[in-house]
């Protein structure tokens, strides 16, 4: 799995539970060492220069790392010192993080007395405290009520531009609302790397069919493109080992089953059909897994909008 994130971008990790989202994030933040490969943050290699790389990151782990016996303010002061905020700026930064995460009325309460939603906010405040250029948020909205989810999304959206954000979720609307780019991970493998719009089109609006055939390029291409239901078509040669063999990739309407027409078009043209298959089944499966948890949230969101 390999990917990079540009400055100021909001990237979403999407995948069912146990897909490897948290593990990936733990590697990015330097908590887990990758058994192979490397992580670079802001030009610093996590393996070579961990302290510099870590100082650029704010991290909200899946289980919020809180000390229940501390007050919110004490806790944030502690984290601020860990992140290396100098003493004279500490109070200012703590106050800023408290107000940014709507914790003002709870600042002097013990964390053990906070509800799940406020603990989550406290974790977010902790990640933001040193104004890190990179934010890694592992399921930032889990355990929140619908109103809090919307507030948190707004907060994350407000970080666009100045911060680079990677967030993980198993809730699809979250990435659609907040992220500019989505990575779908399943069982530790990167399945897709798309913008949410493309992803949506891919999941809902289309089906991609791949055809491998042997024959002259132009007539084959023309014949395929002429079939109704084919929205777009790209062709590529298989390489010098396979002369006259081409791979066609067709975006089609998912409601029409046109594989039969495609196959007979090649065969009746007198060319050799080597392979034909519809793609992205795995993506659809993942999508299904994701959307099953989704209906609830959609309903909640509508309620909140009313």
């Amino acid at each position, binding site marked *: 799995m390999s990917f990079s994130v540009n400055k100021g971008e909001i990237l979403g990790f999407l995948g069912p539970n146990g897909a490897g989202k948290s593990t990936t994030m*733990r590697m990015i*933040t*330097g*908590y*887990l*060492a990758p058994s192979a490969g490397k992580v670079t943050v802001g030009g610093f290699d996590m393996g070579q220069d*961990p*302290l*510099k790389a*870590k*100082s650029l*990151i704010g*991290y909200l*782990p899946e*289980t*919020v*790392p*809180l*000390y229940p*016996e*501390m007050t919110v303010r*004490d806790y944030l002061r*502690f*984290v601020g*010192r*860990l*992140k*290396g905020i100098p*003493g004279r700026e500490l109070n200012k930064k703590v106050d800023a993080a408290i107000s940014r995460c709507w914790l003002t009325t709870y600042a002097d309460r013990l964390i053990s007395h906070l509800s799940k939603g406020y603990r989550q906010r406290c974790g977010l405040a*902790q990640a933001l405290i040193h104004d890190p250029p990179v934010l890694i948020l592992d399921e930032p909205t889990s355990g929140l009520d619908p109103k809090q989810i919307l507030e948190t999304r707004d907060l994350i959206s407000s970080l666009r531009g100045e911060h680079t954000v990677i967030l993980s979720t198993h809730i699809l609307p979250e990435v659609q609302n907040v992220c500019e780019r989505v990575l779908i991970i399943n069982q530790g493998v990167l399945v897709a790397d798309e913008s949410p719009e493309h992803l949506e089109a891919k999941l809902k609006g289309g089906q991609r069919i791949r055809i491998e055939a042997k024959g002259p390029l132009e007539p084959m291409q023309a014949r395929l493109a002429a079939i109704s239901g084919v929205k777009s078509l790209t062709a590529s040669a298989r390489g010098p080992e396979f002369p006259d063999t081409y791979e066609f990739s067709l975006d089609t309407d998912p409601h029409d089953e046109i594989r039969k027409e495609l196959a007979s078009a090649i065969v009746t043209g007198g060319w050799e059909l080597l392979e034909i298959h519809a793609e992205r089944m795995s993506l659809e499966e993942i999508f299904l897994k994701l959307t099953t948890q989704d209906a609830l949230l959609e309903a909640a969101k509508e309620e909140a909008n009313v």
Partner: protein
Amino acid sequence: MSKVLAIAGRELKSYFVSPLAYVVAALFMLAAGGLFDAILMSSREASLRALFQNIAVVFLLMVPALTMRLLAEERKTGTIELLMTSPISDVSIVSGKYLASIAYLFFLLVLTLIFPLTLVLIGGNPEWAPIWTGYAAIFLMGAAFMAIGLVASSLTSSQIVAALIAFVISLVLWLIPAVGQNFGTTIAGGFQYLSIINHLESMSRGVVDTSDLLYYLSVIGASLFITVRSVNVYHWR
């Protein structure tokens, strides 16, 4: 350094906002006071030598309970992830934790200053040199137990298991001369040197031998080194 102090400070604060620190201190003083009284009444000597030996036993039993949570709890609750993704080295994390436990040990021993004070108040004329070297020795010994406890706490996320490991290692170091008795005098002497209690005995006579200091400092150094390595391993699982 400020980060080490932040970790140590948080650790101490969490000791002192919970009843644990006070309960432990109260029980410790109850035990130490009882022992002081019993020893003084039977020996009628203005000396703390025997008391230090007895406090050592109390430490053997008590220190594992004090150190068990240091790293095990952070792992259990997941806060270790915060520490290990902050711009702070594993060495600093371990140092902060150790510093906090040493500070608590120091606090306990300050409480016991009431005993030499009592000796003076009841008209005794104690010899001060062995008292101060005894304090240095009991501090070093407690610090060695604390370091062993820290290793144990780094090995598991279960506090009970951590306490047991710490207790067993400490006990082995305590009883190790018995093993040496089966061998010749040279080897037996070596085993004597490994005993954590013998060095306390020799130091509380009022003489500071560098070999005693070296012993405690080696136990502490080795333990902290192993702890750092063991914390480092968290990155790999």
